[in-house]
């Protein structure tokens, strides 16, 4: 019958209209400012820098200014300048730190390549997206003070991933300590065996 196709279509839309009042499958609207979407664990928006310690963020940055992410960043939106001096990191080893670390979020494409290439787990992806501003120059260029966020924040937003990273770092540190212990023991043994040799070189 001519017109039956149109009527069928109207029945479908009418069903959906009625369903939008009682059927949870058809009630899809998320009323945004009042009701927030639960972001999945893997969600990424812009990078941030991890600090070990919330009280002294600039002193405990994990970043050692190796500049790998600066080189690999496809749109070249990261700038890093190495420090002149060294600071001890979480394990007490002296490391360089970034004197300048900036990310231009007006260029960043949220591709996560900086996170993937970072060998120190120092840069991770943030989930904050409500960052509309009226000033492009001041507000969208993030320097290291604004990028630094404590490890506890990382645990908050990516719990599974953060636990895995922490476990790995702990294992690495333990392995390094063991190695240092073994090396020290070997050195002591060597020193005991040959008492008159040059003094052991200062370990860095």
């Amino acid at each position, binding site marked *: 019958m001519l017109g039956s196709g149109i009527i069928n279509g109207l029945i479908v839309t009418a069903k959906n209209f009625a369903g939008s009042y009682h059927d949870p499958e058809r009630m899809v609207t998320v009323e945004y400012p009042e009701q927030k979407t639960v972001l999945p664990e893997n969600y990424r928006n812009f990078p941030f820098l991890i600090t070990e310690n919330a009280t002294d963020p600039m002193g405990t940055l994990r970043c050692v200014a190796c500049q790998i992410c600066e080189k690999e960043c496809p749109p*070249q939106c990261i700038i890093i300048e190495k420090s002149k001096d060294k600071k001890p990191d979480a394990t007490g080893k002296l490391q360089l730190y970034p004197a300048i670390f900036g990310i231009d979020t007006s260029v960043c494409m949220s591709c996560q390549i900086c996170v993937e290439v970072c060998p120190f787990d120092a840069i991770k992806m943030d989930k904050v997206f409500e960052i509309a501003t009226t000033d492009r120059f001041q507000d969208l260029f993030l320097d290291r003070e604004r990028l630094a966020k404590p490890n506890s924040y990382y645990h908050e937003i990516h719990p599974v991933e953060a636990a895995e990273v922490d476990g790995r770092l702990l294992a690495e540190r333990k392995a390094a300590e063991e190695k240092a212990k073994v090396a020290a023991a070997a050195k002591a043994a060597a020193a005991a065996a040959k008492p008159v040799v040059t003094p052991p070189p200062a370990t860095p």
Partner: protein
Amino acid sequence: METLEQIRARLLLAYPAAQITFVTNPGPAAEHSLLIEAAHAVEIARWLRDDPALRLDYCSNATGVDWPDKTITDVTTTTEPDPAGGPAKTVEIKTTRLQPGYLEAIYHLYSIALKQGPVVIRLRTANRTDAVTLPSLTPTWRSCDFQEREIFDLYGIIFTGHPDLRRLLMWDEFKDHPMRKDYVEPDDYEWEPTAHGAVLERAKPHQSAAAAPAPKMGGTP
């Protein structure tokens, strides 16, 4: 499907005057190609399309490549006998020669009728400046229409016999061919807060002498 050598042999039988060179592809993909002289390209393309064993009725991809002039240093070692009767001296003679650059158009041909392919053919211009004309294959494969216009736009190869050779992507008043390797990008690097490497070089003239190369900004959160 026939191998590329067999196709070349049959092509040479059909067109004895044509110059057809076999270009090997050293990579793991091993997609070798045939370099075809521009003068016979149109006939050969038609032959490839209509040959009953090949029937390459579908030109999937047509693209340009820019190979700029290269200076090649040849080192020839010759041994000169020492007149004093000592051991022969080896003398290295370094000669630099300029390998002229050229522009290249590459076509990937497949057969939809026989579900085979690809056959890759290449055409080369004589140089990169004035002799940049190649015959258009659009009359043979209509799919080259926009792609050859794009090559003309971005590389500057002029295709004779193309029905509508205009710029495809850039505006008509544009003068350069931006995909060429020696293209100089327009200078609009006034604001580069994260400039480093090549970008920093371009941004430097815009930053005043007083400014640090990487200014720190937005200090207070």
